[in-house]
């Protein structure tokens, strides 16, 4: 009985620490850029054409929709809650990383898939976090890394064998995070009303922070990024 109650207490404490704030407010918006929309530049596939050349690849560093929406920007509302460590996932597929940009709660595990049946490597460029770089041959379809993503920072991922393959993992201990879709839109729900700092990051356009007052119901956060 005693043990049970202690467990229950621990679970409650964890829940308090890590669950997203159960507020009713939502922040929605569009991250945009005045940079021109247009077909992204094609990637020169220089090796393993039989697998890497099946689908045409293009650069994903600046994806702008017709209305100026910016894809793959990361929105973090700071101070809204602690992120619970869990397991994230990324795949090496068709000689690109899927997704190209992702968020990951600090101290999470990362499951890395190789769906290509050929040799890749997974090379992370952390500074706060110890970088990892291991070879992932075709037979190694799944590899779970349990260290390397403990501290909040933006980490670049690279496959050195296929020089065009890169991705970004935004490690954060905040629970209120989102990655923008193709139209630049995002939505973060379950926020408590209050004043926060919103941070927006993009791999080419850098970082923008701004104050944000959240009220019950729907709130709007539109940020234009340029550099």
């Amino acid at each position, binding site marked *: 009985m005693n043990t049970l109650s202690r467990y229950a207490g621990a679970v409650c404490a964890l829940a308090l620490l890590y669950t997203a704030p159960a507020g009713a407010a939502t922040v929605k918006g569009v991250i945009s850029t005045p940079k021109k929309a247009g077909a992204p530049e094609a990637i*020169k596939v220089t*090796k393993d054409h039989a697998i890497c050349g099946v689908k045409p690849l293009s650069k994903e560093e600046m994806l702008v929709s017709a209305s100026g929406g910016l894809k793959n920007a990361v929105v973090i509302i700071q101070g809204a809650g602690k992120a619970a460590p869990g397991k994230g996932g990324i795949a090496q597929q068709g000689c690109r990383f899927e997704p190209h940009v992702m968020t990951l709660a600090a101290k999470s595990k990362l499951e890395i898939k190789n769906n290509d049946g050929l040799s890749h490597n997974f090379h992370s460029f952390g500074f706060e976090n110890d970088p990892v770089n291991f070879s992932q041959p075709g037979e190694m379809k799944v590899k779970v890394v349990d260290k390397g993503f403990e501290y909040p920072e933006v980490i670049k991922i690279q496959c050195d064998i296929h020089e065009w393959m890169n991705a970004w993992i935004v490690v954060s201990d905040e629970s209120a995070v989102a990655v923008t879709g193709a139209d630049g839109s995002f939505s973060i729900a379950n926020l408590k009303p209050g004043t926060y700092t919103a941070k927006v990051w993009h791999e080419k356009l850098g970082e923008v922070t701004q104050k944000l007052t959240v009220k019950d119901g729907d709130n709007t956060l539109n940020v234009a990024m340029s550099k």
Partner: protein
Amino acid sequence: MMLSIAPLLQALMALFVLAAASPASAQQALTPERAAKGKPVYEKRCAGCHGLTGAGDGPAADRLRPRPRDFKTAFYKFGDTVFGKLPMDTAMFRAISEGLPGSSMPGWKDTLREEEIWDVVAYIKDFSRKFARLKERGEKLEPLVIGTAPKLSEADIQEGKELFLKNCEKCHGKAGRGSGPSAVALKHDLGDRIWPRNLTKGWTFRNGNAIENIYRTAAGGITGTPMPSHLESLKPEQVWKIAGYVDTIVQREQPKTSEVIIGKPIEGAPPAGIDDARWAEAPAAHIPLAGQIIEGERWFTPTVDSVQVRALYDSTMIYLLAEWDDPSASPLTEPNDKFPENEPDAFAVQLPTVIPTGMEKPYFLGGGNKSPVIQWKWTNGGAVETLSAKGILKVDPIAGPAANALSANATYVDGQWRAMFTRPLTASGDGDLTIEPGKYIPIAFSAWDGNNGETAEKRAISIWYWLLLEPPTPLTVYLWPAIIGFLIAGGEVWLVRKVNQHAHRKE
């Protein structure tokens, strides 16, 4: 039970590794007092390259390739741990004590006392908060377990080769010369271009070329570089097999530099080409090359570091075979976006216009106004030219019949160019050289790796060496010793007889 044995085993293995790696430097306690004692030593001996704040940005840093270690990021290439992990103290001690071959990092064991080196290790660790954080978290570094090399059979080596081709070839190439398809697009984590090691040149290995060192690098990778660890995907015994295979292709000692290229006479048909069996008759001369840092744009990072040269000749022609390792045949058929430089590879043989009679030779860097030189230049996919030079950038195609006297052809296989030059011995006009057998003729070389952005003065160069076409040995050279030997033997027999006769008579 298992749980309690594992750390014990690990500790034992760690002890073993440490003992194997550096017998003279057992771990010492690194206290704050030690770090304080290390500060003045660091500032006197290390800050010039590594910077006062340890950021690898000392006054000399910009001129060094590879750049000095940045202690703030705490990326240590040779830490005796797996990729990305902080280094073992003993590995740091070893790097300071022994230096890092092939880089500008000298060994300090003759300058600093062992105690002082440990003080510096303690001080350097304070530049990064990562070491302290590790302590706070109560974690210990796990050394990369090496142990001793297992006995490998022929079949193991063969399996090692297959594993090499599967896991290493993409960067290190089929023959291990660093010429794989991914070699031309690699970057160091801090941004500089980086090349996979040419595994046939063991003397260039930064962290030792014993089979245990090869295992360590293949197993753990090299932090801060594209070289990944392989213990996630391979079993230790498989990595040992790879190390065993690399052991069969590595040449550990750097070949001695040859002052003279000795050309051998041949009879009959001219060499059929690069693969003619008679090339084996000509001794291989090893000529080191270095970046051209004297005139124009200085070039510190050439990829071609040496050339092997052989010469043959007959009654009318000279044949020169040059072989050099280059990580790619440029221009690349599939250039990448990361390094778009894509000039053609090239190679030049440089000779004076007349054989010098005294000590004075033309300026080795392309001659000068008073004493020009000629250059035989081969360019991949381009012309074979005889050039007349009066300086490294004052180069013009030679005029007159000499322009067409030279021919050359080259092949590129697995990271190695082999180029054969053919030319008449006799000069084909004004400003050309007549090559006389039996005379010492100055000769120098230049190599350009186009994919490394090398053109014009950006290249690898040699100083002057000598070419000597060895005259065929006349029969009299063999006859005279025989005659003299015969006479001496005859004389001795006669003398012994005389002495014997004399003795007889006395009796």
